[in-house]
Structures are given as structure tokens and as C-alpha cells.
């Protein structure tokens, strides 16, 4: 069982490391956000008494790149279906659960690597972690967030027939998840409706957890963040596995 999960994990990793254009391409957006928003809003954020905006923004941008990469990794199943490779795994004498676990861990690993690269870039841009020993806690939050959204991507890909519906997912799921997560703005003193929405967005806990671990300032509390993320990850893994087991070719 472990060797099956390992080979599926390894495949995802090899595919990622071999497509340089994918690595560079998926770093473009976070870097743009970091520079344009970080330095663009920096002065006004400081004048409003918020301190350094780069310091505030970086965990949000790391979470963003983890979100995008992991959902895409999950959605890669649609490609595998279109290019036929999915059939090869589905007729093999292994359970769907093993396939799901292997793929999810692979996708989550890729997303975590991507998050770590953005973290390093943000340090070049001027970000400083509050406490170097808490960085590992941030990595744990990153891994949890990555698993959660890879499972979500898998769940989506299991019900989508082809890439036609992808634009819809992008506009009505991924973008709202990102913009309503507190990645770009503090969660303190929001209008009640927005406060409620942010509190049901799983990414909010990913952003907040990373912010707590990397800068020491947290809205929900890092412990709460990790607990809620773990719970949501389990739920989504369950849903993803169920939908994946129902795929018919």
C-alpha cells in the first residue's frame, strides 16, 4: 500500500519539477501581488497605524500561492482523464482510496514547496519572521492548507467532465476563497456580513494561522486555526475520496 502511495506521490513531484514553465508561471502572480500591493499600499497602511504592510501581507500571499497550486494539483485529474492516464490507474488492482491519498499528498507537497519559495522571495522583499522557531509552525499550517485544497480540487475534478467548467470554478470559488480570506486586509472591525463570510472561508484559517506563526499577530489564535484547518481537511478528504471513488470513465 505504501509503495503505491509513494509512486503516485513521486509522479506528481516529477511532473512538477520537470515543468519549469509551470514553476515560474505560478510564481509570477504572488510576486506581482507582493510587490504591487505590498509596496503600493505600504505607505497608506503605515499612515493608518497598521505598521508594515509587507509584514502583514506576506502570510496572505503565501496562502494564496498554496491555495492556487493545490487546487490546480487536484484539478489535474481532469487532464489525466482527458489524456487517458486516469484509466491506467483506475484499472490497476489498487483501491481508489490509495490513489486518492497518493495524489493528494503529491499535490500538497508541490503546493507546500511553492509556498516555501514565496516565503523565501518575501524575505528578499523585506519580510521578517517574528520568531525563527515559529517558522516550522507556519510550515505545518502550509501543509494542512495544501492538503485541504488539493482534496477540494480532487472533489471538483471528480464531478467536472472537462475543463469547460473551469472558468466558473476560478471566478466563483477560487477567487472568492482568496479575496474573502483576510489575506489582503485585517479581519478586525469588519461589517458583520463580511465577518461572517470570512469566518466560513477555510482559507481564512490558513492565512491567520500562518500570520500567527510568522508574525505573532493572529485573529482567531494559531491553536484554533490549526484545529479548524485539521477538521476541515478531514471533511474535505472524506468528500474528495467519496466523489473520486464514484468516477466512471
Amino acid at each position: 500500500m505504501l509503495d503505491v502511495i509513494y509512486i503516485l506521490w513521486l509522479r506528481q513531484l516529477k511532473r512538477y519539477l520537470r515543468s519549469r514553465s509551470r514553476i515560474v508561471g505560478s510564481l509570477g502572480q504572488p510576486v506581482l501581488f507582493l510587490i504591487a500591493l505590498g509596496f503600493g499600499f505600504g505607505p497608506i497602511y503605515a499612515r493608518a497605524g497598521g505598521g508594515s504592510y509587507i509584514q502583514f501581507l506576506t502570510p496572505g500571499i503565501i496562502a494564496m500561492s498554496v491555495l492556487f497550486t493545490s487546487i490546480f494539483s487536484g484539478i489535474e485529474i481532469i487532464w489525466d482523464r482527458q489524456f487517458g492516464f486516469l484509466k491506467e490507474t483506475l484499472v490497476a488492482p489498487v483501491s481508489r482510496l490509495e490513489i486518492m491519498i497518493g495524489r493528494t499528498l503529491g499535490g500538497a507537497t508541490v503546493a507546500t514547496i511553492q509556498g516555501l519559495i514565496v516565503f523565501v522571495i518575501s524575505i528578499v522583499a523585506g519580510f521578517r519572521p517574528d520568531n525563527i522557531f515559529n517558522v516550522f509552525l507556519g510550515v505545518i499550517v502550509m501543509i494542512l492548507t495544501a492538503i485541504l485544497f488539493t482534496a477540494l480540487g480532487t472533489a471538483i475534478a471528480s464531478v467536472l467532465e472537462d475543463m469547460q467548467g473551469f472558468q466558473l470554478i476560478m471566478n466563483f470559488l477560487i477567487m472568492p476563497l482568496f479575496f474573502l480570506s483576510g489575506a489582503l486586509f485585517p479581519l478586525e472591525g469588519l461589517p458583520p456580513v463580511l465577518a461572517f463570510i470570512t469566518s466560513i472561508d477555510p482559507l481564512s484559517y490558513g492565512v491567520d494561522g500562518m500570520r500567527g506563526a510568522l508574525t505573532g499577530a493572529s485573529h482567531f489564535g494559531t491553536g484554533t486555526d490549526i484545529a479548524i484547518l485539521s477538521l476541515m481537511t478531514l471533511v474535505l478528504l472524506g468528500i474528495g475520496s467519496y466523489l473520486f471513488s464514484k468516477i466512471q470513465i
Partner: protein
Amino acid sequence: MNSIIKVSNLTKKFNGFVAVDHISFQVEEGEIFAFLGPNGAGKTTTIKMLTTLLLPTSGSIMLNGFDPVREQAQARRSFGIVFQDPSLDDELTAKENLEFHGVLYKVPSVLLKKRIDEMLKFVELWDRRDHLVKTFSGGMKRRLEIARGLLHHPKIFFLDEPTLGLDPQTRNHLWSYLQNLNNQEKITIFFTTHYMEEAEKIAQRVAVIDYGKIIVQGTPASLKAKTKTKSLEEAFLVLTGHGIREEEVTSLDRLRLRRRMWRH
């Protein structure tokens, strides 16, 4: 002889549309069996049910003594398959694709390396083993898929239109591999094709399916005798008609089918 594939009254309905309609047939161990039929006749649906990708609506299948519905894992280990469309990972090398397959099929790692080398040499891709599959031609991909399908020593080898889109040289080459394999290892081969001369040359027995029903089965010679034709292609056209098939089936088509079944 021992029937390695036994199908009886197999049926598949999709929302009321009957794609495969109570078909029954048997394939003997070590036989080369061709499953023929026009587009949309139910060939691929049948292969999908035989290979556990689709659940039958009713009827039963025995594959190497296992039921693909209830004994999925054992049934899956009994066969290898080359799908109609390519199913390799383009971003992996030839060797990596085979390694992936070997691990999924639990080939012990001490044997796996040797077997991969053996299969790569068998399909003459040994010198390209470390190249990414996306650099391969259509024929090379097909050969690699054959190597992959055979890697775990299956008893039955399914090939769904394996020679589609290949040039005559590659096609000949491919069939000579498969015939060799059938001779030496007594592996059962079940294939579909639109090239009737291939089926006539290679297959020991054929079944013709149309509108989800098997209209005739037997040796190529017996089909020709039955239809009083000189080639399997002519026999096929007599049996299935000259009209070009659209995916939708009208009641008139069914009527014609019934008439043809009565006549033969």
C-alpha cells in the same frame, strides 16, 4: 478447452439507452479473439465492463475464473489492456511509465527491473528508455503501451483498436509481436479493430456486434461461408449493412438488423 472469458446475458443501459443488449460469448484460453462491429455498436462499452471500468446493468462475466464486479482486484490482476486512446504519462520517461505500472500491479521490485528491461527490448524501445514519452511518435507510444500492458504477466490481453492511426509497417510489426507472444506464452488476446483484413489474418475466432447485440460469431472462414463472400470485410458489410453509422439508432435500423439476423 478452458474458457478464460465467459460472458452471459451481459447488458448495459445508459438512461434507458441499451448500449449492450444481452450478449453471450466465450473465449478459450490461448485464443486470439476479434470483437468486431461498426462505430457505436457497443465494443468499447463491452471492453469497459470486462475490465472493471463500468458496472454491468445485468448479466455475468467470468475473467480467468474471477468476477470483475465482486472480485475486482483478482480480475484486474488477470488482464493487461491497451486502451483505444493513449493512456501514458507524457511527462514521464518510457521506463518511469513502466515502473509506475509495475508498482501498481505489485510486481516484486527484484523482478521488476529485469522485467522492464525485457519488455523494453521486446518492443524495441530499449535505446529510448530514458526519453520522455512526449517525444515519442504514435507507433512508439503504442509499443510502449503494449510493453506496459504485458509487464505483470497477464493471462488475458485486451486491445481496443490498437492499430488505429498507425502506418502499415508499424501495424504489421505490432501484430507480429502479439502473435509471437500468443505462440510462446499462450496469452489470450482479445482485440477490436476496424481493419477487417487484420482480423481475418490474426484472429482464430471473431464475434460481430451491432446495435448492442452479437449477430454472429465463429471462425473468419465460417463467416465467409455463411455470407458467401470472399473476404471478412465483405462478410462484415453484408452482416452490418453499408450505411454509415451515426451515434443515434432509429427504429428502422433495428428492423433492418432483425431482418439480417433472420436471414443468416
